[in-house]
C-alpha cells in the first residue's frame, strides 16, 4: 500500500486505473478535465492498457460508453454540470441497456447564470435516470468508492451504470493524503469483467435496446430496472463489508457521525458535510447533542437505513446544496417521504438551502441552524425553509452593482 497526496480528481482516476478499466470515452469540462488528462497520460505511457477516445460531445460520450459496455468491456467516463445535462437523453437511455459502467460526475452548478463552482443540481437531474448514485465527501472515499462501484454495477442481479459524485473545486482540486491500494489486490477485489448475456459477437447475434409497443412490455422493463436498483440496497452492504475486511476502510450506505445519542441531526450530502462534522464537534463541546447524517447512496435511496437512523430524534435540519425551483430542497423532500408513516418520526424537519454555486457554509451558520432546531423542538413548530445568505452578502452584491454603474457612466462620459 502506498500513501500519496491526491486531489479528488486524481483519486477518481486512480480508482478507475485500479479497477482495470478497458475503455474511456471522454470529453473535457471544468472541473472534471484533470481526471481524463491523468488517464490519458497513463494510456500514453503504457501504464494503463486499453483505449481512450475523445468524442465530440457528452451526448456522444455517454452513447459510446453505453455501447462499449454493451459490447463487453469495462468502461469509465467522467463529466460535470452542462456536460451531464447535454448527455441527459443518453443518461436515461443507457440505463435500460443494463450494461454496467462507472461515470464520475464532478458536481458544478448549472447555467444560468453560468458558473464553475459546485452544487448538486447537475447530478440530481440524473436522479430518476436509472443510474445508481453515490456521493463522496473526501478523496480517500472517492478512490475507494470507485472500486466498490464497479463491483456493485457489475453484480449479476444489478447490472446498472453508476454515477460516483464528487464536489467540484472543494473536493476535485483539494489534495488529501490517500492510501492507494495495491494494483493486484484491487483487481482481485473488483474481479474480471463478465458481460454475461450482454455483448455483441458474430457467433451470437443479439438485438439490444429494441423498441416496445404498448405500456405492458414498457412497464415490465421499467419496473424490472427499478427492482434491480433496489436490490443494490441488499448487495451494497456485503460489498462494503468485503471492502472493509480487505482494505480496512468502511463506507456504508450512510455516514452517521455522532448520531446514536443525538437529539438533533444535520442531514447533508457531499463534501460540505465535512464542514457540518466540525460544527457537530464544537456544538457537542457546548453540550448540544447533535450529529450528522450523510446519505452516500442517493439512488437507490436507503430509506430503511435513514428511517432507522433518524427515528426518535427531536429535530432534523436538511441542508440542501441544490434547489428544485418551485419546490425547494430535493434531499429535504426525499427525507420527508421516508418519515411519513414511521412510528418515531422526528416532529421537526427543517429545510435549509445553502452552498449553491459553491457558496461557503460558515460554522456560524451551522450554529444558527442548530439553534433553530432547538427552538423549533421547544415550540413544536417547523420553521419555514431558509436560504443561507447573509445581509452582508446582499450588501456586497449591491455595492458591486453600484460600482459597475459608476464605471458605465464614466465610460459614457469619456466617449468622444
Amino acid at each position: 500500500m502506498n500513501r500519496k497526496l491526491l486531489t479528488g480528481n486524481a483519486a477518481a482516476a486512480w480508482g478507475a486505473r485500479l479497477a482495470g478499466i478497458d475503455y474511456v470515452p471522454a470529453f473535457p469540462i471544468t472541473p472534471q478535465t484533470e481526471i481524463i488528462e491523468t488517464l490519458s497520460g497513463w494510456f500514453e505511457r503504457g501504464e494503463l492498457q486499453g483505449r481512450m477516445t475523445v468524442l465530440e460531445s457528452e451526448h456522444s460520450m455517454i452513447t459510446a460508453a453505453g455501447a462499449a459496455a454493451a459490447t463487453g468491456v469495462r468502461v469509465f467516463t467522467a463529466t460535470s454540470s452542462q456536460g451531464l445535462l447535454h448527455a441527459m437523453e443518453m443518461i436515461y437511455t443507457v440505463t435500460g441497456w443494463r450494461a454496467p459502467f462507472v461515470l464520475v460526475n464532478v458536481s458544478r452548478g448549472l447555467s444560468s447564470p453560468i458558473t464553475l463552482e459546485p452544487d448538486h443540481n447537475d447530478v440530481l437531474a440524473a436522479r430518476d435516470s436509472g443510474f445508481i448514485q453515490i456521493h463522496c465527501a473526501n478523496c480517500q472515499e472517492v478512490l475507494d468508492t470507485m472500486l466498490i462501484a464497479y463491483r456493485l454495477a457489475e453484480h449479476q442481479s444489478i447490472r446498472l451504470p453508476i454515477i460516483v459524485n464528487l464536489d467540484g473545486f472543494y473536493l476535485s482540486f483539494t489534495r488529501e493524503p490517500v492510501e492507494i491500494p495495491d494494483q493486484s489486490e484491487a483487481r482481485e477485489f473488483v474481479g474480471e469483467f463478465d458481460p454475461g448475456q450482454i455483448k455483441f459477437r458474430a457467433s451470437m447475434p443479439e438485438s439490444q435496446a429494441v423498441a416496445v409497443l404498448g405500456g405492458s412490455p414498457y412497464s415490465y422493463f421499467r419496473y424490472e430496472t427499478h427492482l434491480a436498483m433496489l436490490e443494490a440496497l441488499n448487495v451494497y452492504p456485503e460489498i462494503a463489508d468485503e471492502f472493509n475486511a480487505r482494505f480496512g476502510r468502511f463506507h456504508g450506505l450512510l455516514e452517521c457521525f455522532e448520531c446514536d445519542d443525538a437529539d438533533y441531526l444535520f442531514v447533508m450530502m457531499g463534501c460540505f458535510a465535512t464542514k457540518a462534522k466540525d460544527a457537530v464537534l464544537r456544538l457537542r463541546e457546548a453540550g448540544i447533542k447533535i450529529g450528522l447524517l450523510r446519505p452516500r447512496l442517493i439512488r437507490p435511496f436507503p430509506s430503511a437505513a435513514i428511517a432507522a437512523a433518524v427515528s426518535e430524534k427531536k429535530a432534523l435540519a436538511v441542508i440542501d446544496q441544490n434547489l428544485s425551483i418551485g419546490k425547494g430542497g430535493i434531499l429535504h423532500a426525499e427525507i420527508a417521504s421516508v418519515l411519513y408513516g414511521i412510528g418515531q418520526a422526528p416532529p421537526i424537519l427543517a429545510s435549509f438551502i445553502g452552498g449553491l454555486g459553491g457558496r461557503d457554509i460558515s460554522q456560524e451558520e451551522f450554529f444558527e441552524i442548530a439553534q433553530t432546531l432547538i427552538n423549533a423542538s421547544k415550540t413544536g413548530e417547523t420553521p419555514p425553509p431558509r436560504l443561507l445568505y447573509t445581509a452582508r452578502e446582499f450588501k456586497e452584491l449591491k455595492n458591486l452593482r453600484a460600482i459597475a454603474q459608476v464605471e458605465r457612466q464614466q465610460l459614457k462620459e469619456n466617449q468622444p
Partner: protein
Amino acid sequence: MTDTRFARMKDLPSTHWLGAGTPMCAGCGGLQALHQIYDILGNKTVFVNAAGCMTLLSIYPFTPFRGSWLYTAMGSAPAGAQGIRDALDILLEQKHIPPEEDLTTVVLSGDGSAYGMGVSATSGAIDRGLDFLYICYDNEGYGNTGQQFSAGAKTSTSKGPRGYPGYKKDLFALWAANKPAYVATVIGAEPLDLARKIEKATQLKGSRLIIALSPCPTGWDFDPKESTEIGRLAVKTGVWPLKEYQDGRVSHTKIPKERLPVEDYLKVQGRFAHLFEPVRNEAMLAEIQQRIDDYWADVV
C-alpha cells in the same frame, strides 16, 4: 467497377438475410434498399440505429435481423458505432475474442438524423476516422413523425403554395469534403448499381456513407405499387444522381443518356401537387428543372 462479383442481375444474392413481416409501410423504398444492402452485408454486422421509421423494424421480442442491433437515439448513432468499434478492437487486441467474432459496425438512420440532428456525431466519427458504414435511407422528411421537412427535404410537404422553399442539403459533398474512405448514392430501383457500391464499401476501411433515396408512399403521397417506378424516374430525370466518391474523386456511375423532364417525377407524387394545381406553377417548375440541368452541365 471491373472486378465486381455483380456483373449482371442474376449475380445478385439469392439468399435473403432480412426477415419479412416488418411493420414498415407497403412499398417502402427504404426497406427495399435495406433488403438489398443486407443481402450483401450479411449477419456479421451490428446495426446501430437512430430514431426513425426503421427503429420499428425490431420490436420486442421480434427482429428481422439475422445479425446484431442496437437502438441508440436520434442524434448519436455514430457515437454508438464508435463505442462498439472501440470495444471490439480492445477485445481483439487483448485476445479476449478471436478475429472471427468481429463484426462490421453499421449505422442505420434516416435523413433527419443524417442531415440534421446526427451531423455533430457523424462529423466527430469522420474526424476520428471511425471504421464504420453509415447507411442513410433518405425519404426527404421526418417519416416517423409524419413527414415534416428535414434538412434532406427537396421541396415541400408543408402545404403552402410554394411549399418548403429550401433545397436539399448536399450530404454527399459534406462527407466527401472531409475525405472519408467512401461515399455513394444508391436507390433500390437500381439494384445492380447498389450491389456494386455496397460490395465496394465492404472492401474498404474507414468512414463510409451510403445514401439511399427512399421513395416513401406514405410521406410522398403515391400508390405503393409505384415505388420502384418513382425510384427509376428519380434517376432518369436526373433528380437523384448515382455517384460515388473515393480517393478524392467523384464519379457518376449511371449518367442518364437523355434526361426525362423533371415534372415526370414530380407530377406522380401528391407532395408536389401544389406545383400543378390549381394552376401549373411554370416558374417554379422551370426553376427546379434549371437546377437539375445546372447540376448535370457540370458533370457531362
